[in-house]
């Protein structure tokens, strides 16, 4: 496990300590609660994006084969199902980036650890504010193709 500051271990120790012996009002970032789930999501989104990037470099490499080969593979990205997956990918990257900034602020900003919980809400808020119009703009064509009157 990478170094994530002593707070990670505080969380684990604190959770194994009887409640009566706990004297840690702050610093329990992990093991249960939002602190653990933000970390689990950071991990899942990081792995998913890494695997996608692998595929994405391979499909882009087709520009070296022929314009036809490239246009064919890009056509699959334009289909409704892959379009929805693409929205999911953007959502995953956006969460990972926003929560990544939160992690960096916890590590380097003096007040970071104290306001980490509020920062989780900022992450959720910014994510929603970007994703709602973002999803619409990414899907205009798909919505039109599936439900629009213009064929």
């Amino acid at each position, binding site marked *: 496990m990478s170094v994530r500051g002593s707070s990670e271990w505080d969380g684990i120790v604190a959770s194994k300590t009887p409640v009566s012996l706990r004297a840690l009002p702050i610093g329990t970032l992990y093991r249960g609660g939002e602190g653990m789930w933000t970390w689990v999501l950071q991990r899942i989104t990081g792995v998913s994006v890494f695997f996608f*990037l692998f595929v994405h470099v391979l499909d882009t490499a087709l*520009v070296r084969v022929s314009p036809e080969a490239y246009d064919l593979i890009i056509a699959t*990205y334009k289909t409704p199902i892959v379009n929805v997956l693409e929205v999911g990918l953007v959502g995953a990257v*956006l969460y990972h980036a926003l929560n990544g900034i939160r992690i*960096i602020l916890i590590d380097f900003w003096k007040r970071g650890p104290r306001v980490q919980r509020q920062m989780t809400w900022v992450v959720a808020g910014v994510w929603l504010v970007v994703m709602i119009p973002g999803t619409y*703009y990414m899907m205009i064509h798909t919505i039109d193709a599936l439900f629009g009157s213009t064929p």
Partner: protein
Amino acid sequence: MSSAPLAAPRSGSRTKQRSNFELYGWLFMRISGIVLVVLVLGHLFIMNILDGGVQRINFAFVAGRWASPFWQIWDLSMLWLAMLHGGNGMRTIINDYAERNQTRFWLKMLLYVSTAFIIALGTLVIFTFDPSLG
């Protein structure tokens, strides 16, 4: 309070053999992360949302973009930073979950070889792209 003299330590100094690799890795995750915010979110915005998104992408679109050294450098930096950041993150995850030494070793070898392959392939594609194919 008197006590028996302690025997001199028999093992060598441990500090000498340790490297700061994990510290630099930790720092790299944070520095590359900040740069990737601009590169990756900018890329996703331009490619998926701006002016029709993915629907307008084809060979000619790529040719137009890579005619500019600005986008070549953008994409090249993004490729290297994202693969190294993601690769180092995957290394951490393998270390966390693969408990047998053999499993851990071979999973990491697979990770390093495939990561190096993708970085090399992507770099080659950006540098040798030939718009006249279109």
